[in-house]
């Protein structure tokens, strides 16, 4: 288990939070996070770890879908958040090619308190404003999008997207998603997909 020391709890967290706020305010925008030297286990990319460290503390719980290499204990050690079963977790760390069933028991909040829902942190292989082979051409609409935003994403399964849309169908209840990835020059990046996002996609 690695305890990260290069991370600045005050200024890195603040910068990364501002990027996340911008991502949720403007779905479909690829936001780069200021890189930090990290040594996460293989199941977590840098951006996912930085999201966890920016937003989680001892007050919240998380669930790591892939936990073969100590991912959960790594996240606990570096954010103080406790691991919890999927249906109770405030943050869910998964991968874009996970089975759609992971969303079935995720917390969507309630009609009176839709803000208690889970936040999904989903790792994808790559994303770009330029065409990418072997992925999806994802069109974003809804609040925060000026007309339409297009992003090419690899490593995100359409089945999982369909399941996400199904869980977000009953607004205001729903799950907010952060797509995380490494850029080609290995800069950690995030894309916000709030529950209000309208999504269309085609394979390219």
């Amino acid at each position, binding site marked *: 288990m690695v305890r990260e020391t290069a991370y600045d709890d005050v200024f890195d*967290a603040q910068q990364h939070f501002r990027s996340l706020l911008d991502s949720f305010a403007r779905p479909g925008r690829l936001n780069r996070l200021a890189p930090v030297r990290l040594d996460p286990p293989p199941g977590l990319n840098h951006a996912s770890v930085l999201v966890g460290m920016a937003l989680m503390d001892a007050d919240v719980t998380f669930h790591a879908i892939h936990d073969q290499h100590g991912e959960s204990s790594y996240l606990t050690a570096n954010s103080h958040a406790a691991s919890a079963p999927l249906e109770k977790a405030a943050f869910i760390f998964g991968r874009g090619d996970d089975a759609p069933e992971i969303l079935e028991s995720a917390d969507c909040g309630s009609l009176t308190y839709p803000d208690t829902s889970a936040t999904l942190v989903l790792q994808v292989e790559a994303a770009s404003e330029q065409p990418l082979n072997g992925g999806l051409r994802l069109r974003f609409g809804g609040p925060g999008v000026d007309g339409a935003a297009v992003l090419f994403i690899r490593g995100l399964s359409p089945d999982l997207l369909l399941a996400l849309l199904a869980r977000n169908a009953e607004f205001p209840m729903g799950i907010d998603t952060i797509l995380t990835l490494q850029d080609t020059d290995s800069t950690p990046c995030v894309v916000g997909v709030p529950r209000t996002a309208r999504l269309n996609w085609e394979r390219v």
Partner: protein
Amino acid sequence: MIANTKFQSSYNYAFIDESTKKEVRRRALKAVCIPGYQVPYSSPEMPISRGWGTGGLHLTLSLIGKSDTFKIIDQGSDASVNACNLREFVKMMTGCRVTFDTAEATLIQTRHRVPEEIMTERQILVLQVPQPEVLRGVERYEVRTRQMHAEADYSKIWVSLYEAYVRFGTLMRGSGYPIRVNDRYVATPSPIPRWDVPNLSMANCLYLFGAGREKRIHAIPPYTKVEPLEFEDVKFRVEEFAGIRCSVSGEDRAFMDEIFDDQERRKHVINDSNFLDKVKTGQRPPQRLFNNPD
């Protein structure tokens, strides 16, 4: 003399401790994801009383970083006591740059006004809100208003608008005209003049609303539809300043303050102080103006 040791210790960056900041940040993110919905949050103690701008201050201090340029206005003015004190405080706690220039600021905290100048994509406006619950005037209990929001049951607010029309002949609500955000939640734009309400819709910038005393955060993301509540036959109107010009700059088409000078003569002055400064130098910044229906 007893030495004061308690207040000699240095504060955390931006005053609030990191754990509380994280909590405010998580709530702010949820608020952005559910436009118009009021997210409950902790509302920690501040060195000013609750209800004096703490909600705005919580958001500002949780958002602000070293690279930010901060501006704060109170009733459109950079120079009012409240704005000056909070500006001093934020500067003292963060060491970030402060400015009067609306265009230069990355983070603007405001009370009672949205700047006249069009805000850009890289800006965030934080509004101080005394009463976040738009339905409070028609329903006393929180459980009930929460249920009404959950069911999108807004009949009572429509009735109250109708009553205002019957009584005053116009859709007047003092300040804080009710808005519908993204076709779902009815929310308060905070007490701003009706003049500013159309600027909330499809804006370039993000609007965050903090109500410290009531412990609620809500948000309007950029490019989000915001409609003032209006009837099919009675439309929403902004304040009219027909035939009125600013006594300082001679300009019109801005929200005006009515003032009386020493000789008790009635005058008008542009309310937004930075806008007035720019107008005086002959560089009128771009505005979004709303035309009242005929």
